[in-house]
C-alpha cells in the first residue's frame, strides 16, 4: 500500500493545510476559536480521504486518538467531579464525541461514544469505581448521553464526509483540468505519454499503466514500477483495447486480475488502454470512485492522442504533397535533360548509319563532335543525379584525410579538362601547402561544380578567380565569376534542387550542381554561401573547418538529418 503523503502535491493533500481563514476581528478569543476550529476540522488524516488512498495504520491511530480524548475527558471529569454533578459533566463527554466525529469520522466517534458511556458510568456516576447504577435518573442520563452522542456524531460525520467528498471532487476536477491543460500543449505521441505519465503519477496514488498500439499490437508506453504485471493482466488490457470496454477488477470481464483497464476511446477508434491497480483492501465503493477519476484521465488522454494522430496525418499529407511536387519537378527535369542529349546522340548515329552517301566529311565530323559533347553532358547529369540520390539517402560518407588544398584545386581543374584550360583562371592560393582534413573526392566535386557554373555563366573572355584563404580555424574557398550574375531575388533559392534562376534557355544544367555542393560541404560540417559581386558576377564561397573531425559528421545521426534536410 502506498503512502498517500508521498505522492500528494501540497495543493491536493486534502485537509492538511489550514485553508479555512475567513477575515475576522483580530483579537485573542477569535484567534483561539479559529485555531481550535482549524485543529478540529483540518487535521483529517489521509486515511479517511477515499479518493486519494487509505492507510490502515492511520485509521487505527485515529481510533486510538478518539479514545485518548475520551480518556482525557474522563480524567478531567474525575478530578473535578466532587465540585460538579454528573449531569454537568455529561456535556464534556458529548463534546468529546462530537470532536471525535468531526476530526476522525464516524467509526472513532461511535467507538468513543460507547467507551465514554462506560467511563461515565464507572468514574462519574455514584457509586464511583463501579458499573452499578443505583439512581434511575443517572441511568436515563447515561443512556440519553449515549444516544445524543451517537446521533450527533453520525450527523457530524455525515457532514464531514460530504465536505470531504466535495473537497476530493474539487481536487480531482482540478487534477483532470491540469492534465487537460498540460496535454493541450503537447504535440507528438511521445510528448503526450511523457506529460500524461508525469501528471498521473503526481495526482493518482495507485500504480498505473498506459499502453498504446504500435504496429498493429499493443505496447506498454508507461508503467509505474509498482504495477504488478503478468499474462492475465496483459490479457485484460488487450481485451479492453480490442473490444473497447472496461476490463479487469470492478468489471465483469477479468474480475480476478488486479488492474482496472479502460480503453482510450475516441470518435476514430480505440487509441490505447489506461489501467490502475487500486489496493485490494479498498472498499469496492471507494475503488469505483477511483475508477471514475481514472476514466476522466482516460478521456483526456484519448482526446490528446486522437488529436496528435490527426495532426500527424495532416503533416504526412503535406509531406506527401511536397514530395509529389518535387517528384514532378524531378521527372520533368530528368526527362528534359536526359532526352535532349540522347536525341542528339541517337540522331547522329542514325544519320551516320542511314545517310552515309549524302554526308560529306566535315558534316560527319561536326555531327560526331556534337554527339560526343552531348554524351559527356549526359554522363555528367547521371553523375549529378547519383550524387543527389546518395545525399538524399544519407549515403554520403565523408572520408576525411589530410589533403593539400592546392592539390584539390588542381584535380578539379584537371577534371574540367579542356573547358578550364582555354579560359583565364586566376588562382590565389596560400604560399605554403595548406593541409586540411577533408574528403578529397567530395571537395574536388564541389569545386568542379562551382567552376563549371562559373565557366558556363560568364563570357568566354572573362576570367574566373579561385581564392583559398585560411581564416579562424577554417579554410575558405571562393569561386568568382564576372558574368551576369544571379539576380538578387534569386540568390536565396540558388541552392534548391532543380532551381535554375529563371534560366530555362540553352543552359545545360539541371539545377542540381549547387544543391549537391551544399550537401557535400555541409557533410563536412562547413557552410556555403552565394552572393553578387559589386560589379555583377557571382561569388560562391564555402568554408570547411580545418580541425573538425569530419568522421563525426559523417557518422552521427544528427548529421544524417542535416544532409538529408537539403531535400527541401
Amino acid at each position, binding site marked *: 500500500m502506498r503512502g498517500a503523503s508521498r505522492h500528494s502535491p501540497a495543493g491536493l493533500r486534502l485537509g492538511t493545510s489550514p485553508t479555512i481563514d475567513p477575515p475576522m476581528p483580530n483579537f485573542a478569543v477569535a484567534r483561539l476559536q479559529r485555531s481550535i476550529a482549524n485543529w478540529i476540522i483540518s487535521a483529517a488524516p489521509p486515511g479517511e480521504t477515499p479518493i486519494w488512498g487509505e492507510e490502515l495504520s492511520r485509521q487505527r491511530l485515529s481510533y486510538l486518538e478518539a479514545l485518548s480524548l475520551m480518556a482525557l475527558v474522563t480524567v478531567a471529569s474525575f478530578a473535578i467531579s466532587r465540585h460538579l454533578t454528573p449531569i454537568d459533566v455529561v456535556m464534556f463527554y458529548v463534546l468529546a464525541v462530537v470532536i471525535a466525529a468531526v476530526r476522525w469520522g464516524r467509526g472513532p466517534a461511535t467507538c468513543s461514544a460507547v467507551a465514554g458511556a462506560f467511563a461515565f458510568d464507572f468514574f462519574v456516576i455514584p457509586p464511583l469505581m463501579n458499573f452499578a447504577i443505583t439512581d434511575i435518573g443517572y441511568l436515563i442520563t447515561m443512556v440519553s448521553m449515549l444516544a445524543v452522542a451517537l446521533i450527533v456524531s453520525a450527523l457530524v460525520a455525515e457532514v464531514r464526509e460530504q465536505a470531504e467528498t466535495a473537497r476530493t471532487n474539487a481536487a480531482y476536477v482540478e487534477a483532470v483540468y491540469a492534465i487537460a491543460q498540460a496535454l493541450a500543449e503537447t504535440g507528438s505521441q511521445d510528448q503526450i505519454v511523457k506529460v500524461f505519465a508525469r501528471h498521473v503519477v503526481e495526482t493518482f496514488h495507485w500504480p498505473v499503466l498506459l499502453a498504446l498500439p504500435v504496429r498493429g499490437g499493443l505496447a506498454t508506453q508507461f508503467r509505474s514500477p509498482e504495477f504488478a504485471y503478468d499474462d492475465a493482466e496483459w490479457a485484460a488490457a488487450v481485451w479492453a483495447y480490442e473490444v473497447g470496454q472496461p476490463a479487469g477488477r470492478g468489471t465483469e470481464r477479468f474480475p480476478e486480475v488486479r488492474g482496472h483497464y479502460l480503453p482510450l476511446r475516441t470518435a476514430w477508434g480505440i487509441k490505447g488502454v489506461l489501467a490502475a491497480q487500486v489496493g485490494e483492501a479498498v472498499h469496492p465503493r471507494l475503488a469505483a470512485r477511483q475508477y471514475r477519476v481514472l476514466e476522466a484521465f482516460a478521456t483526456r488522454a484519448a482526446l490528446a492522442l486522437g488529436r496528435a494522430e490527426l495532426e500527424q496525418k495532416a503533416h504526412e499529407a503535406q509531406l506527401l504533397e511536397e514530395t509529389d511536387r518535387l517528384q514532378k519537378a524531378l521527372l520533368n527535369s530528368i526527362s528534359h535533360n536526359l532526352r535532349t542529349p540522347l536525341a542528339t546522340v541517337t540522331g547522329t548515329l542514325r544519320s551516320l548509319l542511314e545517310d552515309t552517301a549524302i554526308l560529306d566529311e566535315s558534316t560527319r565530323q561536326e555531327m560526331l563532335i556534337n554527339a560526343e559533347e552531348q*554524351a*559527356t553532358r549526359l*554522363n*555528367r547529369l547521371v*553523375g549529378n543525379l*547519383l550524387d543527389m540520390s*546518395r545525399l538524399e539517402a544519407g549515403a554520403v560518407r565523408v*572520408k576525411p*584525410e*589530410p*589533403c*593539400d588544398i*592546392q*592539390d*584539390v*584545386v*588542381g*584535380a578539379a*581543374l*584537371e*577534371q574540367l*579538362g*579542356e573547358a578550364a*584550360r582555354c579560359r583565364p583562371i586566376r*588562382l590565389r*592560393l596560400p604560399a605554403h*601547402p595548406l*593541409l586540411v582534413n577533408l*574528403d*578529397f*573526392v567530395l571537395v*574536388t566535386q564541389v569545386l568542379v561544380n562551382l567552376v563549371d557554373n562559373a565557366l558556363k555563366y560568364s563570357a568566354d573572355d572573362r576570367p574566373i578567380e579561385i581564392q583559398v584563404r585560411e581564416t579562424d580555424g577554417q579554410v575558405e574557398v571562393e569561386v568568382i565569376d564576372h558574368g551576369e550574375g544571379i539576380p538578387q531575388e534569386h540568390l536565396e533559392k540558388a541552392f534548391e534542387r532543380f532551381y535554375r534562376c529563371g534560366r530555362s534557355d540553352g543552359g545545360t544544367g539541371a539545377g542540381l550542381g549547387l544543391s549537391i555542393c551544399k550537401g557535400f560541404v555541409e557533410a563536412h560540417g562547413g557552410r556555403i554561401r552565394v552572393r553578387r559581386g559589386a560589379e555583377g558576377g557571382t561569388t560562391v564561397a564555402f568554408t570547411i573547418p580545418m580541425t573538425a573531425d569530419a568522421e563525426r559528421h559523417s557518422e552521427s545521426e544528427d548529421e544524417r538529418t542535416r544532409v538529408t534536410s537539403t531535400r527541401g
Partner: protein
Amino acid sequence: MSERGLRVLAVDDERPIRRFLCSLLSSRGYTVYEAETGREAVEQARISGPDVIILDLGLPDIGGVEVTRCLREWTQTPIIVLSVREGESDKVEALDAGADDYLTKPFSPGELMARIRAALRRAAGLEKGSVFTAGDLTVDLAAREVRIGDRPVQLTPTEYTLLKVLVSHAGRIMTHAQLVQAVWRGIHYEDALHILRVNVSNLRHKLEQDASRPRYITTDPGVGYRLRTEHVAAAGDSGSS
C-alpha cells in the same frame, strides 16, 4: 613495339561493353578473349594466358577485387580495372590488390589503348632504363640527378626517394598506401599521408611550371598519384570526364 597478335582478356558482365572492347581491340590487331563472370575470368586467364586483362569491378559473382587477388597469386599479367565514378574505394582496393591501372566508365578508346600500351611496356620491362624523361623533366637514377630542361633541381632525400618510386612506376597510378609503403614504411599511416601530401606539394613546386596545374605528377582524386609519361608534351590531353 608490335601490338599485333597480343592477347587481351576482356571481363565484363555487360555484353555491350564486351562487344565494344572486342571491336575496338580486334580492329587494332589484338586477339580478344571474353569472360562474363569472375570465375570465368580466372579460368579463362589460365587457359588462354592473355598478355593483358581488362577487368570490370562490378561482376555478379566474385567481385573484380577478389578476381585480382586470385590472379595475383600466380600471374603478373597486367590488369587494367574498369570502374564507375563513385567507386574510388573499389579502385584503390583493386590497385592495392595488384591491379596495374584503372579506367573510369565511360572512357575513350584513346585512353584505353594508351593504358594498355603503358601496362604492356612496364610488363616487358622496357622502362627499366636508368634515365627517365618526360617533357622537360629528366631523372637520371644512376647519377641521382634531376633536371628541368638544362636546369638541375635540388631535392631533399625524401623528395628524391618519392620521385624515384614514381619514376620506377612511371605512367602507373600509385595509391597512397603503395607510396607510403614504399617511402615511409613503418610510420603511422595518417602521419605518413600527411608527409606524403607535403612532399608531393614540394616536388611540384620544384618541378612544375604551375604547381596548381601539374603536368608531371598528377592527382587521381581519392586514389593516388601518377607520374605522367605520355601526353606530357601534348597539352591537349582530354582527361577522364
